């Protein structure tokens, strides 16, 4: 990695960046899925038809809604901490109905994806996408 700051090469900064990057724990990785199930694979598709087929396939890994509370952030200040406690309490209180809604929505997602898959197979043909704007 080469860095240029205000028009000048900065090797000391590059070394600092490399050192800092190594301090990042594996737990900070944004990906939870294995590489073969990641959307980034779509970049390798040969054409839009292959893209559509693979994206339907990949969507199957995202059907289920997650009703768990969001990862805890580090609220700063008394007001923010109080709000965070209130939010957690509300989440616990709503836990059961949220899980029920998530389950229903997940089933609807499964049905929708199946329907999409059937439509895609029926319409299997040349790409008809028109560009919507200048690249």
């Amino acid at each position, binding site marked *: 990695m080469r860095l240029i*700051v*205000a028009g*000048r090469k900065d090797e000391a900064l590059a070394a600092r960046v490399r050192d*800092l990057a190594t301090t990042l724990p594996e737990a900070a990785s*944004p990906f939870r899925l294995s590489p073969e199930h990641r959307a980034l694979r779509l*970049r390798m598709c040969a054409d839009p038809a292959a893209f559509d087929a693979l994206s339907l396939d990949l969507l199957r890994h995202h059907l289920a809604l997650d009703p768990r509370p969001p990862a805890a952030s*580090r609220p700063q200040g008394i007001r923010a901490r109080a709000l965070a406690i209130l939010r957690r309490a509300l989440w616990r209180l709503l836990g059961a109905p949220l899980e029920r809604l998530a389950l229903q929505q997940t089933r609807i997602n499964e049905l929708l994806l199946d329907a999409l898959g059937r439509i895609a197979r029926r319409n299997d043909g040349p790409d008809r996408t*028109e560009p919507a704007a*200048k*690249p």
Partner: protein
Amino acid sequence: MTRVDQLLDGYVPGDAVSRNALALRNQLRQLGYESDLFAVSDRIAPDGRADCRPLTDLGLRQPDAVILQYAIASSAAEIWRVGGFRRLLLYHNITPAEWFRPYDSVLAAQLEAGRRALPELLSAAHAVAAVSSFNAAELRALGAAAVRVIPLVCATSPPPAPDPTFAARLGGGFTNILHVGRLAPNKCIEDLIEAFGWYSRGFNPRSRLIIAGSDRSCPRYAALLRMVIVETRLETVWITGFLDDRQLSAAYATAALVVGVSRHEGFCAPLLDAARAGVPVLARAAGGIPEAVGGGALLFDEASPRELAALIHLATTDAALRRAIAEGQRARLAELDRRDIGAELRDWLTQAGVPPPASPPI
């Protein structure tokens, strides 16, 4: 009165080519020329119709010269090539078709056709210019002898007042990381999303990634980005869609850093808009970007997602580094402000054999 018109494939307010054409039209009028913009009628955005006329109206105007703002194959280029006027070609670069192949075969074919048509357009032109030396080098490689560089004029405009409602939505004590530009595969926004994941989980949970730009030019690529956001479970990444000038101004005003990770750019005007708004820039040194930003950015060639996260962290927290970037930005903007765009245009028109305006400049 001498008339110098401009032809574009499409006209969308806010788009770099459209902004440049509008700024050049205003400059031409100031020089004393009659001047209007023309584009393929179904590719003029509804809010752009006040500034740009349908291509079919061009013949009625009988222009003395026409500038073609060229970035893709279109019927506008064909009309320009055979027109009975002095022909000036302004090249904005054509994104290599390979970037679009997985997403849009029609667009990929149009881009390929655009590159194939270049030699013919060059031989039809009475004068040729490009918006960066990077773009000019492409034309010289195709045999064009006298290519001048006329950088994007829109980059010298001051930002409008921020939209207060939109600015409020972007507040809340978060560190805002901003990407500006249409959602296109060559911009590699997925790399930024991944790096932002490392950054927000490893350095700064109170951070937000704002991806501002039209998501209509390549819908499948926009879908890929949304899938990446879903699978990384990043709740503070926001794809805003197209923003108007005042919303964009609000996005700059609330941003701690503007990041560009594109692997192919002819110029990249948003990085200069960021400098104009006083926001530090971190960008990949690709294509015409180093030339566009001059010393006004922290540039990297290659970086892993973790390294990019570390770069974002340092560029948002290290005061000395931010000062150095800001100084570079001020120097670059001062350099751009010293340009005499009127003189650049006059010289170019003279080179093309365009008669001077009959009336004195306003």
